[in-house]
């Protein structure tokens, strides 16, 4: 158990799918964050203050990287 022997039967393609699934789950969770929380601390909000865009950008870059490799 301590060596994760149960995972020996899982292919690396499936493992990659799990990792990309994790990025997807985090992305969905970010999209559900309330607007007020995202803009907390901003006096005059503009589109570029929307931190959801920032997080999704980072997630798209990393997901593409894991798809490529």
């Amino acid at each position, binding site marked *: 158990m301590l060596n994760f022997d149960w995972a020996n039967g899982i292919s*690396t393609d499936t493992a990659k799918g799990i990792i990309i699934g994790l990025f997807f789950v985090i992305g969905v969770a970010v999209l559900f964050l309330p607007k007020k929380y995202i803009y907390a601390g901003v006096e005059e909000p503009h589109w570029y203050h929307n931190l959801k865009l920032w*997080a999704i950008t980072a997630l798209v870059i990393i997901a593409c990287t894991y798809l490529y490799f």
Partner: protein
Amino acid sequence: MLMGIDYFIIIAYMIGMMGLGYYFKKFITSSDDYFIAGKSLPFWAIAMSLIVSDIGAVDFVGTAGQAYRYGIVVANFDWLGSVPGMIIAAFIFIPFYWRSGIYTIPEYLGRRYNQWAQLIASITWILFYTFGLGVTFWASGVMLNTLMGWPVWLSIVITGIVVGFYTVSGGLSAVVMTDVVQMIIMFIGGGAMVFLGMNHVGGWEGLVDKVGAMGDQFSNHFELVLPSDTDTPYPWTGILFGLTFVMANAYWIGNQSIVQRCLAAKSEWHAKASLLLGAVLKMFIPVLIIFPGLIAVVTNPGLENGDQAVPMLIRNFIPPGLLGLLFAAFFAALMSTIDSTLNSTATLWTNDIYRKYIKKDVSDKHYLKTGKVTTIVILVLAMMTSPITDTFPGIYVAIQTLLSFFQGPIFAVILLGMLWKRTTQWGGLFGLTGGIILSLLLYLFKESIFTIKDPFLYVSWWSFVGALIITYFI
């Protein structure tokens, strides 16, 4: 061999850092200014500082060496092992810390659990930071000695004087703003080395083809995900459970030098944005520290020690002028690590120990002075004790390993304390100490318990699980 132009660039860099740090002296009038920059820092400066502090001078050589041996899988530490953790920290934990107005992570543990949890966490961090600084000084000095031929003591003394000067003068503001310049220098110097190396091997496609043609030993060099029964230290299970779920979160959520920068943000939005910009910048770090190792597989096959990869690239491809810039980049990586650790250790001592147990309720000026004096004392102590490293070979790795023992337990205690109201004060204390003891036991008996080489990722996962269970049940 360094030429006159190279020395000029290195000296200009050192003087520039001291000048920039000294400029921020005029903004330091209180302990708040010194430790958390008076909560005035913009997101872009914090983001760049977070990224550059995470890379030490030794990483330039050591990580490239790992990439030479194991391939691009090492990039997981900057990608999967950072980006999700930074996003989670940005949206859940950092806003909580920022609003609570704390200075240190142990201070949070003290408020949530009890003073013992705060004391144990503070003393542990102070001891390891101070001793770790000495080891970092020596390891970097030895590396620069190999690359430049400078005596080890010269690199240590020069770095100590420059870093000490600007850290004491300008506090966290100076640390962060010099880090910004250091990151730019690091990207230009390291980027130039990669550009020249890639050009030599025929670009990305040439690199992949040539490495692929070198035999079975290199067949996984462009695989980010390795099977769970791989004989390398990086099976996907270890990367996902140990690195992504525990070590990455512990680092971005529970590491004092990281959190302290975010606490210095001018608003909650800037604190969150700093980590998100950092996550994007993090994606480019492997280009600087991993690609040199992959390039060296083609240009210098058959090296017995992967750590020779970067010195070989420097010897083969870097012209005078650029060499000075590259060494300035090495110094930048070293200084950004040293300055962050120094400022964080001074903050831990002044706020968690001195203000709480030694001298309560004195003027703020007194705590400001204490912070500055502590910075100097720790720096001198680290420089004086650094030669001990030479007596104990392998101590650099040992210190890094010991530090990793705390990651899982501290993250477990922070996580439960924040998300589960029924966590008790003694649960937190025993979870922390029990988790650290479990890490030690797992590491001591690693050969009879684990099947992979150097199972630090598994140790980190199971110590986290152990600490979580202890904290839950007590």
